[in-house]
Each structure stands twice: as structure tokens, then as C-alpha cells.
């Protein structure tokens, strides 16, 4: 202010006081009434007030300025860091699709379940917690206490806990106990269809059967949940809570019939428990479509117990194990001979009891003097020599051609993993003995499914339809996607097929090798097979026992079902007609009855098994 110098209230300029000596210490500093100052002048006071307020305002403005930087300029970066700090991402497990039989009965499905996990650093009282959980989880207290006091922050207490139990655990509100989603796979049918359905591993990946082959469709896509949480993982109600829903897996509908599958397995189990049969496979197939309605091998396994089952059993031998089919192969050889015009069912051949082939001599089952058999007779009596004679007329290359056309030596393409192609050598590499063995089903290996497929071709008028086991897939939204049905390929003419069906009927007829394969009320066509089994100890045929087989279809006049039965009997010399044919008959009877197949309207024709061989 301009008046300041003249302001009378201003404090006078301070003059240096006279220095006092120590003796003057008690004297008053100044004479009474001689004030040095009259207080702070109003001008100075006003200025002080103004500056004081100014400083405070400047400080507050500094805070506001910093806020502009924090909330405006740098705000986005900090806010994002804060958000990612609070964000937690949880997986939402997709429910794996079910595996259904052709009527929609579940063979495998998934339910919600939980894994009970403890964070030992948060658990307050391990002993009490263990006591509270022991009955619910069915785990001994000692083990729970150990788990609850384990080091680290993640200790699994129990797995696959059902929802009722997990709800009870949640209600207990035990600190440090966390439930994690752990969908559990159930196999309600147990061993029924187990080899077809397969199983999943601990991480939920399919490891066998349909579970493995259709893993992509079954597993679906896991979803995620992004949620903002406060300390302790509690979701903040007003915060971000975004979910990408899980896409559940598709259901897979098989062509398998659960009831039939059960019956097949029961019958095989009976066979496997008789002490002779170590392994028995059966395939039941629709004659006109190639759909497999039952497929089983004894012994089987329960997919829910897969982790504790002998790993050697965890396969599907009906498609993965090969055997030498033996005489059932003769149908292929004879089909080739008839199709190529080398013979008709009534062609009569003079068949010796043995025939030299290269360095070996092949005999019939029992050596005999030359007999004049018709071709039907050769098949009905299962004459090796007659078949070899016809095969020689067909020729090696042509025979191999037919065998491959029937699907031998290559996989069928069924929707199952681990399928074997069988073993079929190139005909150019056949030795003389091999060339004599192959037509009668030795020196060639097939799967049970391949053999069934061969007879399906004959039953279907010569058109082979590759076997299929999956009907359709059903998406979670209900969309049904049928599996593409493979095109049939004609292997033999319809007339040849009819002639073959006619001849195969003779096998179960009087004088045939398999009267036990008969089914009352139905005309049955089929063929026995008894093949030497290679002894795994020496790699030779001696002492290896036999593969006994029976493959056939019924009704012969209007084929509906094809059944292949194959029993591995290492310690027995029983023939296919004696052991495999009854199994076939039992299964065929059930299948036909279950499917309400009309019994054959006509009786089995009388067969001319012998004749007069033309002398030439």
C-alpha cells in the first residue's frame, strides 16, 4: 500500500538496545510506559491473512491439479491396471456330450460334480475341518488332516463329489475349502458297450472308442467367466462380470442297441467262462445297411473302472485283433469261382482227401477217398481240397482281387479308433503253399468285423456297404447331423449272391458242418470256420489250439442280420460248428425275435451235396 511509510501504526525501526552487563540483569528492560511496539499493524495483519489464505488455496489447487493428472491424463492407464489387478478369470467347464444307443439310452454321459480343494494357509482349524468333512467325503480323518496341513496352497481332498454333497460342504462355510468344477463322466451301462464307447482320461480327453474318435464333438468348448473380485476373491456386485458361456458337447447316437449288446455280452461271457474259450468276439450287423447293432468281445471292461483295469483289456478286439478265419473264407473263394463262371452250386467235382500244394500237402479235416461233391457239398462239408481246386481255377490274382473287393486287407472305416486292416499278402508274393492256404482261410488274417462285412455283402445281394457304428450327432441346440452313409459297392452279382446264400444254407442243413447253427423258424445261412491258431510260444501252429468261428445271416430268403462269432480256444480242438455255431444260433434267435422279423415262409430247400463227377 502506498500509505505504508506514513502509517502511524507501523512498528518503528528497531534500534539496537544498549548492551546490558551482567550486573544489570535485574533491571527492567525498559522504563515503564515506554512500549516498543503497539502490536502488529493492520496492514501487516491483512497482508498475513491474505498470504496465508493464498498459500492454503495454492496447496488445495496443487491437489486438484494432481487429480487432473491422475483422473484425466493418466487415468486410463491406471484404471486399466487397477481393473486387471481385480480381474479373475474362471473356466466354465463345458458338459461333455452323451453317447447314446440307437434308441437314445445313454451309454455315457456327464454330470456336474466338484473337486474339493483346500488352501492350507487359509484353513483355520485343520482338525475340526477334517472332522466336518470326513463323513461327507468318505475320506479318513487322518488323511484329511494331512491334506489340510500340507505345505503349499493347493491340496486336493476329494474328487468327483456329487452336487448334493458339495452343497452340504458349501453350507458348512469352512474357511479355506474351495469347490472346483469337475464334471464327472458316468457310464450307466457299465461294461455293456464299454469297448465301443471307450473312456476318458483324468483330464477329460477321450482315450478309447467313441470317446476318443468323437472327442472333438463330445467335448464342446469351455467357457470363461471374467469377474472383478475384492480381497479374498469375493465378486464385487457392481463390478465387471462377463461370461463367455461354455458350448456343451454334442451327443453321439450309435447304431448299437443296448439290449442286444447286453445279450451279446452275456452270451459271450458265458462262453468265456467255460474254461476253454479265452477270448470271444461277436459282431451283429444289419444286412442291408451295414450298421453294427452290437459288437463285443469277452472279456470286456467297464469304462468307469478303466483306470484300474488291466491295460491289455482296454481295447476293442472285435476290430483291432486279427485271426486266421479258416473255412469261413471259403465263401469268398466260392463267390469268386461262381462269379467268374468257373462253377455253379451244382457243379460236381471229384474231391480227393488231400491235395499237394508246393512243399506241403493240404488235407480235408479228415482224409478220405475221392468223393464226388457238388460245389454246395464242398461248402457244406467244408472241403479244403475242393475249395483249393476251385481257387486254382479262379487264379491267385483274381482271388486276391475278390478278397480285397470284399474288404479284406484294408480297414472298414468304421468310426472307431485302432481298427486293424488284417493281413492279406500281395498274390504275387504267394508261395504255392500260401496260394493253397489263403482260399481256405489260413495265412490270411482278418478281424471279426471284416468277416461280418464279407457275409453282409453276400446277404445284401452282392453289394458291400462298409460297416458303420455311429448314427448321428446331436448338437446342444438339438440339431441332428446324420453321419454320412457310405456308398455300397457291388462285389458280386446278385445272382452269385443268391447262389452263395443258397449254398451257405446247406452248411446248417443235414450233412452240413453246423447243424447247431440252426434257428427254429428261420432259414439260416452261414459258414463255420476252424483255423489253427499260431502258438505264441513257438510261432508255429502246433499246440496253438484253434480259432473257431461261425459267420452267417438270417433269414436266408430275406436276410436281415449278419452275425460273426469268433472264439479263441487255445487248448481245444473243437470245431466251429460245435462251439461257435450255438453261440451264433442263440444270438440270431434273440436278434430276430427282438426285431420282430417275420419267420421264413418257405422251408429250407433240399440240397444236392453229392453228384456224379464228369469224367474227363
Amino acid at each position: 500500500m502506498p500509505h505504508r511509510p506514513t502509517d502511524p501504526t507501523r512498528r518503528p525501526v528497531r534500534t539496537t538496545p544498549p548492551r546490558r552487563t551482567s550486573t544489570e540483569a535485574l533491571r527492567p528492560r525498559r522504563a515503564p510506559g515506554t512500549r516498543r511496539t503497539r502490536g502488529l499493524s493492520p496492514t501487516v495483519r491483512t497482508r498475513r491473512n491474505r498470504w496465508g489464505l493464498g498459500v492454503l488455496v495454492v496447496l488445495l489447487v496443487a491437489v486438484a491439479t494432481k487429480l487432473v493428472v491422475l483422473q484425466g491424463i493418466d487415468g486410463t492407464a491406471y484404471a486399466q491396471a487397477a481393473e486387471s489387478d481385480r480381474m479373475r478369470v474362471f473356466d466354465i467347464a463345458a458338459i461333455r456330450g452323451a453317447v447314446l444307443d440307437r434308441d437314445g439310452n445313454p451309454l455315457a454321459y456327464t454330470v456336474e460334480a466338484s473337486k474339493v480343494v483346500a488352501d492350507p494357509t487359509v484353513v483355520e482349524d485343520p482338525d475340526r475341518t477334517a472332522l466336518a468333512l470326513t463323513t461327507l467325503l468318505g475320506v479318513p480323518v487322518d488323511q484329511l488332516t494331512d491334506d489340510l496341513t500340507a505345505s503349499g496352497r493347493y491340496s486336493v481332498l476329494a474328487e468327483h463329489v456329487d452336487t448334493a454333497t458339495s452343497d452340504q460342504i458349501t453350507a458348512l462355510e469352512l474357511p479355506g475349502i474351495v469347490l472346483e468344477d469337475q464334471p464327472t463322466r458316468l457310464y450307466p451301462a457299465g461294461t455293456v458297450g464299454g469297448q465301443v464307447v471307450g473312456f476318458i482320461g483324468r483330464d477329460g480327453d477321450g482315450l478309447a472308442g467313441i470317446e476318443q474318435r468323437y472327442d472333438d464333438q463330445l467335448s464342446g468348448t469351455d467357457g470363461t467367466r471374467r469377474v472383478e473380485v475384492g480381497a479374498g476373491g469375493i465378486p464385487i456386485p457392481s463390478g465387471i462380470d462377463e461370461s463367455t458361456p461354455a458350448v456343451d458337447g454334442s451327443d453321439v447316437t450309435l447304431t448299437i442297441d443296448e439290449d442286444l449288446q447286453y445279450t451279446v455280452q452275456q452270451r459271450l461271457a458265458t462262453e468265456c467262462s467255460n474254461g476253454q474259450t479265452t477270448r470271444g468276439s461277436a459282431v451283429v450287423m444289419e444286412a442291408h445297411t451295414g450298421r453294427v447293432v452290437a459288437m463285443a468281445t469277452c472279456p470286456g471292461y467297464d469304462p468307469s473302472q478303466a483306470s484300474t483295469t488291466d491295460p491289455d483289456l482296454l481295447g476293442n478286439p472285435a476290430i483291432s485283433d486279427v485271426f486266421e478265419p479258416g473255412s469261413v473264407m471259403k465263401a469268398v473263394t466260392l463267390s469268386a469261382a461262381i462269379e467268374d463262371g468257373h462253377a455253379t452250386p451244382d457243379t460236381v467235382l471229384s474231391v480227393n482227401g488231400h491235395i499237394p500244394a508246393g512243399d506241403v500237402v493240404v488235407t480235408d479235416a479228415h482224409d478220405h477217398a475221392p468223393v464226388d461233391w457238388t460245389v454246395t457239398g464242398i461248402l457244406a462239408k467244408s472241403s479244403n481240397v475242393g475249395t483249393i481246386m476251385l481257387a486254382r481255377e479262379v487264379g491267385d490274382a483274381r482271388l486276391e482281387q475278390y478278397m480285397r473287393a470284399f474288404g479284406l486287407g484294408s480297414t472298414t472305416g468304421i468310426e472307431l479308433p485302432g481298427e486293424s486292416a488284417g493281413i492279406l499278402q500281395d498274390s504275387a508274393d504267394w508261395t504255392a503253399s500260401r496260394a493253397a492256404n489263403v482260399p481256405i482261410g489260413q495265412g490270411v488274417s482278418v478281424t471279426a468285423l471284416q468277416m461280418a462285412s464279407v457275409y453282409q455283402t453276400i446277404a445284401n445281394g452282392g453289394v458291400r456297404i462298409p460297416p458303420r457304428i455311429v448314427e448321428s450327432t446331436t448338437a446342444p441346440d438339438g440339431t441332428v447331423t446324420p453321419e454320412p452313409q457310405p456308398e455300397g459297392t457291388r462285389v458280386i452279382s446278385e445272382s452269385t449272391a443268391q447262389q452263395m446264400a443258397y449254398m451257405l444254407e446247406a452248411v446248417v442243413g443235414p450233412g452240413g458242418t453246423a447243424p447247431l447253427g440252426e434257428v427254429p423258424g428261420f432259414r439260416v445261412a452261414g459258414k463255420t470256420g476252424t483255423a489253427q491258431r499260431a502258438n505264441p510260444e513257438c510261432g508255429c501252429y502246433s499246440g496253438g489250439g484253434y480259432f473257431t468261428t461261425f459267420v452267417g445271416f438270417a433269414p436266408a430268403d430275406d436276410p436281415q442280420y449278419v452275425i460273426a462269432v469268433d472264439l479263441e480256444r487255445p487248448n481245444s480242438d473243437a470245431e466251429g460248428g460245435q462251439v461257435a455255431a450255438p453261440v451264433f444260433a442263440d444270438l440270431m434267435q434273440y436278434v430276430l425275435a427282438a426285431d420282430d422279423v417275420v419267420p421264413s415262409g418257405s422251408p429250407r430247400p433240399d440240397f444236392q451235396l453229392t453228384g456224379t463227377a464228369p469224367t474227363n
Partner: protein
Amino acid sequence: MAASTDAPTRTARPARPGGTATSARAARRGAQASRGPLFRAPAWLDGPMTSAHLVLGSAGLLLAIGLVMVFSASSVEAALDDQPAWLPGVRQLVFAVVGVGLALVAVRLPIGHLRRYSGIALLVVTLMLLAVLVPGIGKELNGARQWISLGVVDVQPSELAKLVLALWGAHVIALREKWLTTKALLVPVVPAFLLLALLVLAEPDMGATVGLGLVVAGLLWSGGLPGRWIAGLGIVAVAGIAITALSASYRAARVFSFLDPFADPEDGGFQAIKGLYALATGGFTGVGLGNSRMKWNILPHAESDYIFAIIGEELGFLGCLVVITLYGVLAYAGFRIARRATDRFVQLASAAITVWLIGQAFINMGYVVGLLPVTGVTLPLISAGGTSLVLTLFIVGLLVRFARTEPEAIEHLRAHRQAHPAGRLGRLGRWLVPVPEQAVAPLPVLGRRAPTGRTRPDRGGRTVARVRDGRPGAADRPRAADRPATRQTAQARPATDERVPRPRSAAPVGSAGSRTRQPVRTPGDRPRRPR
């Protein structure tokens, strides 16, 4: 004062015709001379009761914001702790009600007695600060022995110490006003401060120490500590900070970790980072009241030390700006009282209190936004905390009391009482908020009993304030008849005649009514014998 004296000269002067260079310069000088101060309050801020209204308005709004935000910030933690979600909010509300009651008491406290008892209060507070250090009496919480448990509530003597230091310091400095030297200014106040600070530091309570420092800074500043002392203290402070910073010790690293909290995100900088996160999440408009994420146990002390961060998160920059502005208004009001009051004690005390409150608010907001190291200083009127809130509201009441002793306010209040004798609350209202008798309160004498049997009660033999009414040297005391009605005279009045207006003094208070509007002179605080 300056504003009003300059008011008539503000009118534009007529421009001189044919202005030369000299005349233009003269005109510029003249304009410069008549411009007055840099900031001039608008006319609507110039009312007689504006100070009180500003204090009540800003403090009331801050209290309301504080109650809402304490409830918002604490409910989640309480609920997660298996307590009723509203419990901390209701507790704060109860403290607020108690505080408002104390504020009403403060509004009618006789300033003279306040001054007289301040010395005793200082002794009591010192004893309390000593007592709190005794393990049996002091209650330890979070490693600090700051509370004395009184059963229902815990009392924090360090909060009380700040107020007592402010009142006592203002009293002592005001007493010596006429004889004040720098030494006299410093000597009783600063040693007392050092003693209290030492006791508070022993608890330890860093925040309260800072608060005591702020009180002393306010006192010394408005007491007139010479500029070179202030500069010297500033240099010492800066040097101290620099030496600490350069020493690179562990303690220094902790103190300066606020500059880069992300260097130690788990321990030292944890709270600071979460506070910055909360503010940044709020952005400009905030996430909405009650929607804070950080209060979900992420940000420690969300309802007390770091409530400003929750305000920033829920109400955004706008909410923060409102809070800062309200503190600004409170600061303005406090210094307005210090400027307009004629009582030297009121001037000093209101300045000290304002510096303390606003400084504390700045320190709290400063460390929340990352300008200052984190200390346990709470946000006045907003943070949760019993003693602090009750005491702050008491101080707000004191500020209102001080505001009502402004001479213009007294004059206005008297005129108002005369115009509306009954008032809305009648006698209760008068009893609750009486009109202050004098602009400069006399000091009562302690310990002397009033002799009985006198018609006119002896009021301690001390004089009332006398103010000039424009005539220099004419310091006539108002005659007894003209003297404002007091409690003592009210006894003499007939009890039957309640509705008769009390005799009112026509004497001007201070110089407010005088035409010349000379600066108010206080007659000095030394009590005089009646002539």
C-alpha cells in the same frame, strides 16, 4: 477493511481531454493506485454474517459428504466381517450428533473463560498425553498407544492437544500483543509445542505431530513472525529434507517411496498404489455412489485415511473438486474471521485453527494423490473416527462463535434481535446462540468469588471492551443503561414481564457503524481496573 475503504475510489475517473504522454502515465499510475488488492471479494460476500454462514455451510456439507462416504466405504468391510453393514456408518452418525451438540456448546462459550482456562487445559492435556503412554491406561492399536479407553468410546488426547495448543497459543500471543518481540512470540509457544510434539511422537502418532506443527505455524504466521525467520525456517526444512533424501538410508527410502510407489508395490507402496487405482478408476464423473470396487477390502483404511480415494472413485473428479472447494471455502471463511475480528485472540485462534484444518486436509489429500508421503493424518470432517470428528465439529462451533464476534456481526445480530424479539425459537434460541456481548471479550479473573448482597453483581472487577466510535481518544465506556443486556442484569428484571424487549445498546460496536470506518482498535487485552 481494505475493500471497504477503497470502495469509493473505484469509480472510473473521467479521461482527460488531449492526453499527453505524461498525463497518460499519470492516469495509469492513478488507475494502478486505485485498483486495490489483487483479489476482491464480491459484494454478496460482504455481509455481516457471511463468515458464520460460510463456516456452517462448508463444514455442514463436508460433514454430510463425510457421513455418506464413511457409510459407503465401511459397509462392505463391516458386512464381510459378519457385522451389520450399517454399524460403522451409524457409529459415525452418533459421533456427528455428539459433535454437533458440542458445536452448539462452543457457539455460546464465553471467549474470556475459554482464554482463562486454556492454560489449565494445556496442563491437563499434557498430563493426558503422559497418561496415554502408560500401558495400563493407554490403549494400544496397530502398534501405537494413542487412545485412552473410556469404556464406551476411546479418546485420543493428541487430537485434544492440537485444539488446546491453538487456543492457549493464541491467548498467550494475544496477551503480549503490545509488547511482542520475536522472542516473546516464540518462547512460550514453541517450547510448549516441542513438549507436546515429543509426547505425541512417543505414542507414536506422526499425524498428530504434523497437526501440532500446523497449529504452531498458523500461530506464528499470524502472530507476525518476521519474514527472515520464516525464510530461515524454510531453508532449514528444505535442507533437512534434502539431507534425508541424499542419505539414502532405509528410513529415507520409506519416506520418499511416495514418489514412486510402484517401486515397492507389495509393501511400502501398496496402499498408495491402491489409492491411485481408486482415483483413476473414478475418472471424471466416478463410478457412482456405492459402486466403489476398492472398498472391497482391497484398499486398507478406506473409510478413514484413504476416504478421499473412495470419494474420487465413486464421485470422480467432480466429487473431489467439490470437497477441495469446500475446504477452500472453509479456509476463506477462517481467514475472513481473522481479518474482520477485533479481538486479537480471535484473530490468532481462527487463523491457527484454519491453517490446522486446511493443512491437515491438504496433507491427507496430498498423500492420497501421491504428492506427499503417507502419514496417518485424517481428512477433517470426512474421515471416520470418533474423537477427531467430535473435536472438529467443536472447532467448527468455535469458528462460528468467533465469526459472531465480528463487530459487524454483533451489530447485525443486535439489530436483528431488536427487530424480531421473539425469534423462531424464542428464548430457547436466544439461550442456545446468544448474541456476543462484546467484540473483544474481557478476561475474567479466576478464583475470586463474587461478593453477595450487591445489587449490581461484580463482574470480576474487569472492564468490558471499549471501542472508539470515531472520535480519537474518546474512549467513553457505555453507560450502564446502554450496556447490552447480560445474564447478570437479567436477574434483576421482573420475571412476569417476559415479553418486554430487553434494553438494547445503541452504542456502536467497533467502528462498524461509524461513518469514517477507521480501523478497529482494540483497547488492549490487559484488564483494567474500573475507574
